[in-house]
Protein backbone atom coordinates (compact mmCIF):
# COMPACT_ATOMS: atom_id res chain seq x y z
CA UNK A 1 0.00 0.00 0.00
CA UNK A 2 1.40 3.38 -0.90
CA UNK A 3 1.41 6.05 1.71
CA UNK A 4 2.40 9.65 2.04
CA UNK A 5 5.06 10.71 4.48
CA UNK A 6 4.49 14.20 5.76
CA UNK A 7 7.51 15.71 7.43
CA UNK A 8 8.46 18.78 9.34
CA UNK A 9 12.01 18.86 10.58
CA UNK A 10 14.26 21.30 12.26
CA UNK A 11 17.36 22.36 10.62
CA UNK A 12 19.84 21.09 13.14
CA UNK A 13 20.07 23.54 15.98
CA UNK A 14 23.18 24.15 17.93
CA UNK A 15 22.72 23.30 21.52
CA UNK A 16 26.39 23.68 22.28
CA UNK A 17 27.34 24.01 25.88
CA UNK A 18 23.72 24.14 27.04
CA UNK A 19 23.33 20.78 25.34
CA UNK A 20 22.07 18.55 28.09
CA UNK A 21 19.69 20.97 29.78
CA UNK A 22 18.14 22.16 26.50
CA UNK A 23 17.60 18.57 25.42
CA UNK A 24 16.06 17.73 28.77
CA UNK A 25 13.55 20.62 28.49
CA UNK A 26 12.55 19.48 25.05
CA UNK A 27 12.11 15.87 26.14
CA UNK A 28 10.16 16.99 29.17
CA UNK A 29 7.78 19.06 27.03
CA UNK A 30 7.36 16.21 24.55
CA UNK A 31 6.54 13.77 27.33
CA UNK A 32 3.79 16.13 28.38
CA UNK A 33 2.37 16.76 24.90
CA UNK A 34 2.59 13.25 23.50
CA UNK A 35 0.81 9.99 24.19
CA UNK A 36 1.44 8.52 27.56
CA UNK A 37 3.79 5.61 27.12
CA UNK A 38 7.13 4.33 28.36
CA UNK A 39 9.92 6.54 27.04
CA UNK A 40 11.40 4.80 24.06
CA UNK A 41 14.92 5.14 22.77
CA UNK A 42 16.35 3.68 19.61
CA UNK A 43 19.67 3.09 17.91
CA UNK A 44 19.39 2.39 14.21
CA UNK A 45 21.87 1.86 11.41
CA UNK A 46 20.73 3.21 8.08
CA UNK A 47 22.30 2.55 4.68
CA UNK A 48 21.34 4.58 1.65
CA UNK A 49 21.52 2.75 -1.67
CA UNK A 50 21.53 4.13 -5.20
CA UNK A 51 20.65 2.42 -8.45
CA UNK A 52 21.96 4.28 -11.47
CA UNK A 53 19.78 3.86 -14.51
CA UNK A 54 20.40 4.56 -18.14
CA UNK A 55 18.76 7.94 -17.78
CA UNK A 56 17.46 10.25 -15.12
CA UNK A 57 18.29 10.50 -11.47
CA UNK A 58 19.43 7.43 -9.55
CA UNK A 59 16.76 5.48 -7.68
CA UNK A 60 17.25 5.79 -3.93
CA UNK A 61 16.34 3.22 -1.29
CA UNK A 62 16.95 3.42 2.45
CA UNK A 63 17.63 0.23 4.39
CA UNK A 64 17.45 0.46 8.14
CA UNK A 65 17.87 -1.96 10.99
CA UNK A 66 17.92 -1.69 14.73
CA UNK A 67 21.21 -2.08 16.57
CA UNK A 68 19.34 -2.38 19.86
CA UNK A 69 17.06 -5.19 18.55
CA UNK A 70 19.31 -7.09 16.15
CA UNK A 71 16.82 -9.89 15.39
CA UNK A 72 14.06 -7.51 14.28
CA UNK A 73 13.45 -7.40 10.51
CA UNK A 74 15.13 -4.83 8.29
CA UNK A 75 13.07 -1.94 7.06
CA UNK A 76 13.32 -0.75 3.48
CA UNK A 77 11.91 2.62 2.53
CA UNK A 78 11.35 4.36 -0.76
CA UNK A 79 10.67 8.11 -0.57
CA UNK A 80 9.49 9.84 -3.69
CA UNK A 81 10.25 13.36 -4.75
CA UNK A 82 8.53 16.01 -2.60
CA UNK A 83 5.06 16.61 -3.99
CA UNK A 84 4.52 19.95 -5.59
CA UNK A 85 1.34 21.15 -4.04
CA UNK A 86 -0.14 23.99 -2.14
CA UNK A 87 2.80 26.20 -1.20
CA UNK A 88 1.04 27.32 1.95
CA UNK A 89 0.97 23.74 3.16
CA UNK A 90 3.10 23.57 6.27
CA UNK A 91 4.79 20.30 5.74
CA UNK A 92 6.75 18.40 3.11
CA UNK A 93 4.76 15.61 1.50
CA UNK A 94 6.42 12.65 -0.15
CA UNK A 95 5.13 9.40 -1.56
CA UNK A 96 6.34 6.55 0.63
CA UNK A 97 6.59 2.77 0.31
CA UNK A 98 7.72 0.77 3.36
CA UNK A 99 8.76 -2.86 3.18
CA UNK A 100 9.78 -5.16 6.02
CA UNK A 101 12.49 -7.52 4.86
CA UNK A 102 14.73 -10.35 5.98
CA UNK A 103 18.37 -9.99 6.97
CA UNK A 104 19.59 -10.84 3.48
CA UNK A 105 18.51 -7.33 2.38
CA UNK A 106 21.98 -5.74 1.86
CA UNK A 107 23.24 -8.68 -0.25
CA UNK A 108 20.00 -8.73 -2.19
CA UNK A 109 20.12 -5.01 -2.97
CA UNK A 110 23.70 -5.43 -4.22
CA UNK A 111 22.59 -8.26 -6.49
CA UNK A 112 19.83 -6.00 -7.87
CA UNK A 113 22.53 -3.53 -8.84
CA UNK A 114 22.14 -1.07 -5.96
CA UNK A 115 25.35 0.35 -4.48
CA UNK A 116 25.63 1.78 -1.02
CA UNK A 117 26.15 5.51 -1.15
CA UNK A 118 26.50 6.29 2.53
CA UNK A 119 25.55 4.94 5.92
CA UNK A 120 25.05 6.39 9.36
CA UNK A 121 23.94 5.49 12.84
CA UNK A 122 21.17 7.44 14.44
CA UNK A 123 20.07 7.21 18.03
CA UNK A 124 17.68 9.09 20.22
CA UNK A 125 14.13 9.22 21.48
CA UNK A 126 10.82 8.48 19.87
CA UNK A 127 7.42 9.87 20.88
CA UNK A 128 3.98 9.42 19.40
CA UNK A 129 0.88 11.53 19.38
CA UNK A 130 -1.89 9.69 17.58
CA UNK A 131 -0.60 9.10 14.07
CA UNK A 132 2.26 11.57 14.50
CA UNK A 133 5.73 10.42 15.25
CA UNK A 134 8.31 12.72 16.84
CA UNK A 135 11.98 11.82 16.73
CA UNK A 136 14.71 13.60 18.67
CA UNK A 137 17.97 12.11 17.58
CA UNK A 138 21.61 12.58 16.76
CA UNK A 139 23.39 11.31 13.70
CA UNK A 140 26.81 9.65 13.70
CA UNK A 141 29.11 8.97 10.82
CA UNK A 142 30.32 5.39 10.34
CA UNK A 143 34.10 5.61 10.07
CA UNK A 144 34.85 2.18 8.62
CA UNK A 145 32.19 0.81 6.22
CA UNK A 146 30.07 -1.80 7.95
CA UNK A 147 31.56 -1.19 11.40
CA UNK A 148 28.85 0.30 13.58
CA UNK A 149 30.92 0.13 16.76
CA UNK A 150 33.26 2.85 15.58
CA UNK A 151 31.25 6.01 14.90
CA UNK A 152 31.69 9.73 15.26
CA UNK A 153 28.94 12.23 16.05
CA UNK A 154 28.41 14.51 13.11
CA UNK A 155 27.63 17.48 15.30
CA UNK A 156 26.56 18.32 18.81
CA UNK A 157 23.10 19.18 17.48
CA UNK A 158 19.99 17.13 17.59
CA UNK A 159 17.59 16.58 14.73
CA UNK A 160 13.92 16.83 15.54
CA UNK A 161 11.54 15.37 13.02
CA UNK A 162 7.77 15.33 13.09
CA UNK A 163 6.15 12.97 10.62
CA UNK A 164 2.89 11.27 9.76
CA UNK A 165 2.21 8.40 7.39
CA UNK A 166 -1.14 8.96 5.71
CA UNK A 167 -2.97 7.00 3.01
CA UNK A 168 -2.27 8.24 -0.50
CA UNK A 169 -4.39 11.28 -1.26
CA UNK A 170 -4.89 12.45 2.31
CA UNK A 171 -2.47 15.19 3.19
CA UNK A 172 -4.76 17.37 5.31
CA UNK A 173 -3.03 16.40 8.55
CA UNK A 174 -0.33 19.01 8.03
CA UNK A 175 -2.47 21.62 9.84
CA UNK A 176 -2.50 19.42 12.97
CA UNK A 177 1.23 19.06 12.68
CA UNK A 178 1.68 22.80 12.42
CA UNK A 179 -0.33 23.42 15.59
CA UNK A 180 1.68 20.77 17.42
CA UNK A 181 4.88 22.38 16.23
CA UNK A 182 3.66 25.73 17.63
CA UNK A 183 3.58 24.15 21.09
CA UNK A 184 7.25 23.35 20.89
CA UNK A 185 8.28 26.98 20.44
CA UNK A 186 10.49 28.65 21.56
CA UNK A 187 12.48 25.53 22.46
CA UNK A 188 12.63 24.60 18.82
CA UNK A 189 11.37 26.05 15.60
CA UNK A 190 10.07 23.41 13.22
CA UNK A 191 9.98 24.32 9.55
CA UNK A 192 9.32 22.72 6.24
CA UNK A 193 12.68 21.95 4.71
CA UNK A 194 13.24 23.53 1.31
CA UNK A 195 13.80 20.48 -0.94
CA UNK A 196 16.14 22.32 -3.25
CA UNK A 197 18.56 22.74 -0.36
CA UNK A 198 18.68 19.00 0.25
CA UNK A 199 20.99 16.65 -1.60
CA UNK A 200 18.36 13.86 -1.70
Amino acid at each position, binding site marked *: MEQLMIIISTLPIDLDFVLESALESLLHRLRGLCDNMEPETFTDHELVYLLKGQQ*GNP*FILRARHSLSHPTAPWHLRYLGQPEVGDKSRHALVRNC*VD*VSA*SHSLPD*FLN*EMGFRMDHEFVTSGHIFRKGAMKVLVCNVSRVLVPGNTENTERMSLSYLVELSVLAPAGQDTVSEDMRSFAEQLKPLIQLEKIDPSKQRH
Partner: protein
Amino acid sequence: MYLKPKDKTGERKVSMGVTCVCQIPVTEGKSVQQTVDLLHKKLEQLGAVKQGSFCVDCETYQSTGNAAGQPSKLLYVMHNSEVPLSCMALFEGGPCLTADTNFDVLMVKLKSHFQNAKGHKVECRGSRYRYCDFLIKVGTVIMSSSARGISVEVEYCPCVVPGDCWNLVREFMQSFLGNNVPELPTVFAAKPEGLFAPADCVDTMTQYLELFNKLRKLQITGSNVR
Protein backbone atom coordinates in the same frame (compact mmCIF):
# COMPACT_ATOMS: atom_id res chain seq x y z
CA MET B 1 -0.59 -24.64 12.41
CA TYR B 2 2.55 -26.15 13.89
CA LEU B 3 4.53 -23.77 16.11
CA LYS B 4 8.20 -24.16 16.88
CA PRO B 5 9.04 -23.82 20.57
CA LYS B 6 10.40 -20.46 21.68
CA ASP B 7 13.97 -19.94 20.62
CA LYS B 8 16.86 -18.19 22.40
CA THR B 9 15.52 -14.71 21.77
CA GLY B 10 12.20 -15.67 23.35
CA GLU B 11 10.34 -15.32 20.08
CA ARG B 12 7.97 -17.96 18.84
CA LYS B 13 8.35 -18.42 15.12
CA VAL B 14 5.84 -20.03 12.80
CA SER B 15 7.70 -21.99 10.18
CA MET B 16 7.11 -24.49 7.45
CA GLY B 17 8.18 -28.08 8.03
CA VAL B 18 10.53 -29.91 5.65
CA THR B 19 8.93 -29.56 2.22
CA CYS B 20 9.59 -31.44 -1.00
CA VAL B 21 8.26 -30.20 -4.33
CA CYS B 22 8.41 -32.45 -7.38
CA GLN B 23 7.04 -32.71 -10.86
CA ILE B 24 4.75 -35.62 -11.74
CA PRO B 25 4.52 -36.69 -15.39
CA VAL B 26 1.10 -36.82 -17.02
CA THR B 27 -0.17 -40.41 -17.08
CA GLU B 28 0.08 -42.11 -20.48
CA GLY B 29 -3.17 -41.65 -22.38
CA LYS B 30 -4.63 -39.21 -19.87
CA SER B 31 -4.94 -35.43 -19.64
CA VAL B 32 -3.40 -33.18 -16.99
CA GLN B 33 -6.76 -32.88 -15.22
CA GLN B 34 -7.34 -36.65 -15.26
CA THR B 35 -3.89 -37.31 -13.78
CA VAL B 36 -4.57 -34.76 -11.03
CA ASP B 37 -7.93 -36.40 -10.29
CA LEU B 38 -6.22 -39.82 -10.02
CA LEU B 39 -3.77 -38.41 -7.47
CA HIS B 40 -6.62 -36.91 -5.44
CA LYS B 41 -8.36 -40.29 -5.43
CA LYS B 42 -5.23 -42.08 -4.20
CA LEU B 43 -4.81 -39.53 -1.39
CA GLU B 44 -8.44 -39.89 -0.35
CA GLN B 45 -8.08 -43.68 -0.31
CA LEU B 46 -5.13 -43.29 2.09
CA GLY B 47 -7.39 -41.27 4.37
CA ALA B 48 -6.24 -37.74 3.54
CA VAL B 49 -8.82 -34.96 4.00
CA LYS B 50 -9.21 -32.04 1.59
CA GLN B 51 -8.60 -28.69 3.29
CA GLY B 52 -9.13 -25.87 0.84
CA SER B 53 -6.90 -24.85 -2.01
CA PHE B 54 -3.52 -23.25 -2.60
CA CYS B 55 -1.73 -21.07 -5.08
CA VAL B 56 1.95 -20.43 -5.74
CA ASP B 57 2.83 -17.83 -8.35
CA CYS B 58 5.98 -16.46 -9.89
CA GLU B 59 6.63 -13.26 -11.83
CA THR B 60 9.82 -12.62 -13.74
CA TYR B 61 11.57 -9.26 -13.91
CA GLN B 62 14.46 -8.44 -16.19
CA SER B 63 17.01 -5.78 -15.26
CA THR B 64 17.32 -3.07 -17.90
CA GLY B 65 20.59 -1.56 -16.78
CA ASN B 66 23.09 -4.07 -18.06
CA ALA B 67 26.11 -3.28 -20.24
CA ALA B 68 25.75 -4.32 -23.89
CA GLY B 69 26.51 -7.98 -24.42
CA GLN B 70 25.92 -8.95 -20.82
CA PRO B 71 22.95 -11.26 -20.22
CA SER B 72 20.21 -9.52 -18.30
CA LYS B 73 19.73 -10.64 -14.71
CA LEU B 74 16.42 -12.30 -13.97
CA LEU B 75 14.68 -11.49 -10.71
CA TYR B 76 11.85 -13.79 -9.66
CA VAL B 77 9.15 -12.54 -7.29
CA MET B 78 7.03 -15.32 -5.84
CA HIS B 79 4.00 -15.63 -3.59
CA ASN B 80 2.64 -18.60 -1.66
CA SER B 81 -0.92 -18.66 -0.31
CA GLU B 82 0.40 -20.52 2.74
CA VAL B 83 2.13 -17.28 3.79
CA PRO B 84 -0.24 -14.67 2.30
CA LEU B 85 1.37 -11.56 3.81
CA SER B 86 4.80 -12.42 2.44
CA CYS B 87 6.59 -12.24 -0.82
CA MET B 88 9.83 -13.99 -1.78
CA ALA B 89 12.27 -12.46 -4.24
CA LEU B 90 15.04 -14.64 -5.69
CA PHE B 91 17.89 -14.57 -8.13
CA GLU B 92 18.42 -18.12 -9.39
CA GLY B 93 21.57 -19.39 -7.72
CA GLY B 94 21.87 -16.08 -5.92
CA PRO B 95 20.64 -14.31 -2.79
CA CYS B 96 16.97 -14.30 -1.88
CA LEU B 97 14.82 -11.98 0.15
CA THR B 98 11.68 -12.56 2.20
CA ALA B 99 9.62 -9.39 2.51
CA ASP B 100 6.06 -8.22 3.01
CA THR B 101 3.74 -7.72 0.05
CA ASN B 102 4.65 -4.03 -0.23
CA PHE B 103 7.67 -5.33 -2.13
CA ASP B 104 5.31 -5.73 -5.10
CA VAL B 105 4.45 -2.02 -4.84
CA LEU B 106 8.18 -1.24 -4.80
CA MET B 107 8.72 -3.28 -7.97
CA VAL B 108 6.13 -1.09 -9.70
CA LYS B 109 8.17 1.97 -8.67
CA LEU B 110 11.27 0.27 -10.09
CA LYS B 111 9.68 -0.44 -13.47
CA SER B 112 12.18 1.56 -15.46
CA HIS B 113 15.03 -0.50 -13.95
CA PHE B 114 13.28 -3.89 -13.83
CA GLN B 115 10.82 -4.80 -16.53
CA ASN B 116 8.07 -7.26 -15.72
CA ALA B 117 8.12 -10.01 -18.35
CA LYS B 118 4.34 -10.39 -18.21
CA GLY B 119 4.24 -13.36 -20.58
CA HIS B 120 6.41 -15.30 -18.14
CA LYS B 121 3.99 -15.32 -15.23
CA VAL B 122 3.50 -18.81 -13.82
CA GLU B 123 0.75 -19.98 -11.48
CA CYS B 124 0.42 -23.29 -9.75
CA ARG B 125 -3.05 -23.95 -8.34
CA GLY B 126 -4.76 -26.92 -6.78
CA SER B 127 -6.19 -28.63 -3.74
CA ARG B 128 -4.67 -28.94 -0.33
CA TYR B 129 -4.88 -32.21 1.60
CA ARG B 130 -4.01 -33.03 5.18
CA TYR B 131 -2.97 -36.53 6.24
CA CYS B 132 -1.90 -36.69 9.90
CA ASP B 133 1.28 -34.59 10.13
CA PHE B 134 1.61 -34.20 6.35
CA LEU B 135 0.29 -31.43 4.15
CA ILE B 136 -0.01 -32.43 0.48
CA LYS B 137 -0.67 -30.06 -2.39
CA VAL B 138 -1.33 -31.27 -5.92
CA GLY B 139 -1.08 -28.41 -8.38
CA THR B 140 -1.59 -27.71 -12.05
CA VAL B 141 1.17 -25.47 -13.39
CA ILE B 142 -0.27 -22.84 -15.73
CA MET B 143 1.76 -20.71 -18.14
CA SER B 144 0.15 -18.37 -20.71
CA SER B 145 -3.30 -19.75 -19.79
CA SER B 146 -2.44 -23.35 -20.55
CA ALA B 147 -1.70 -26.27 -18.25
CA ARG B 148 1.94 -27.25 -18.63
CA GLY B 149 2.44 -29.84 -15.94
CA ILE B 150 1.69 -31.18 -12.48
CA SER B 151 3.41 -30.43 -9.20
CA VAL B 152 3.17 -32.28 -5.91
CA GLU B 153 4.30 -30.64 -2.69
CA VAL B 154 4.61 -32.65 0.51
CA GLU B 155 5.34 -30.97 3.81
CA TYR B 156 6.13 -32.89 6.99
CA CYS B 157 5.02 -30.28 9.52
CA PRO B 158 6.64 -31.34 12.81
CA CYS B 159 10.22 -31.28 11.53
CA VAL B 160 12.39 -28.58 10.01
CA VAL B 161 15.58 -30.61 9.55
CA PRO B 162 15.71 -32.59 6.29
CA GLY B 163 18.32 -35.02 7.57
CA ASP B 164 15.99 -36.10 10.37
CA CYS B 165 12.93 -36.94 8.30
CA TRP B 166 13.78 -37.39 4.62
CA ASN B 167 13.38 -41.20 4.73
CA LEU B 168 9.94 -40.85 6.32
CA VAL B 169 8.85 -38.23 3.77
CA ARG B 170 10.09 -40.41 0.90
CA GLU B 171 8.26 -43.46 2.21
CA PHE B 172 5.03 -41.47 2.52
CA MET B 173 5.40 -40.06 -0.99
CA GLN B 174 5.96 -43.56 -2.38
CA SER B 175 2.60 -44.67 -0.93
CA PHE B 176 0.72 -42.49 -3.42
CA LEU B 177 3.28 -41.61 -6.11
CA GLY B 178 4.70 -45.09 -6.60
CA ASN B 179 7.67 -44.95 -8.98
CA ASN B 180 7.36 -41.18 -9.43
CA VAL B 181 8.87 -40.60 -6.00
CA PRO B 182 11.63 -37.97 -6.29
CA GLU B 183 15.20 -37.91 -5.06
CA LEU B 184 16.32 -35.71 -2.17
CA PRO B 185 15.87 -32.08 -3.34
CA THR B 186 19.22 -30.54 -4.30
CA VAL B 187 18.37 -27.41 -2.33
CA PHE B 188 18.93 -29.36 0.92
CA ALA B 189 22.10 -31.13 -0.10
CA ALA B 190 23.61 -27.91 -1.43
CA LYS B 191 23.63 -26.04 1.87
CA PRO B 192 27.00 -25.47 3.56
CA GLU B 193 25.78 -27.24 6.70
CA GLY B 194 24.23 -29.99 4.58
CA LEU B 195 21.13 -31.90 5.52
CA PHE B 196 21.08 -30.72 9.08
CA ALA B 197 20.51 -27.06 8.34
CA PRO B 198 16.89 -26.12 9.05
CA ALA B 199 14.67 -25.82 5.99
CA ASP B 200 12.57 -22.72 5.40
CA CYS B 201 10.07 -21.14 3.03
CA VAL B 202 12.84 -20.01 0.70
CA ASP B 203 13.84 -23.67 0.13
CA THR B 204 10.25 -24.46 -0.86
CA MET B 205 10.07 -21.53 -3.27
CA THR B 206 13.46 -22.44 -4.78
CA GLN B 207 12.09 -25.89 -5.56
CA TYR B 208 8.99 -24.40 -7.19
CA LEU B 209 11.18 -22.08 -9.25
CA GLU B 210 13.31 -25.01 -10.45
CA LEU B 211 10.14 -26.89 -11.40
CA PHE B 212 8.69 -23.89 -13.28
CA ASN B 213 11.92 -23.29 -15.19
CA LYS B 214 12.18 -26.97 -16.08
CA LEU B 215 8.61 -26.97 -17.45
CA ARG B 216 9.27 -23.79 -19.39
CA LYS B 217 12.32 -25.36 -21.07
CA LEU B 218 10.35 -28.54 -21.88
CA GLN B 219 7.73 -26.47 -23.66
CA ILE B 220 10.38 -24.76 -25.75
CA THR B 221 11.87 -28.09 -26.85
CA GLY B 222 8.30 -29.24 -27.64
CA SER B 223 8.13 -32.44 -25.63
CA ASN B 224 5.59 -34.40 -23.68
CA VAL B 225 3.09 -32.03 -22.10
CA ARG B 226 -0.25 -31.39 -23.73
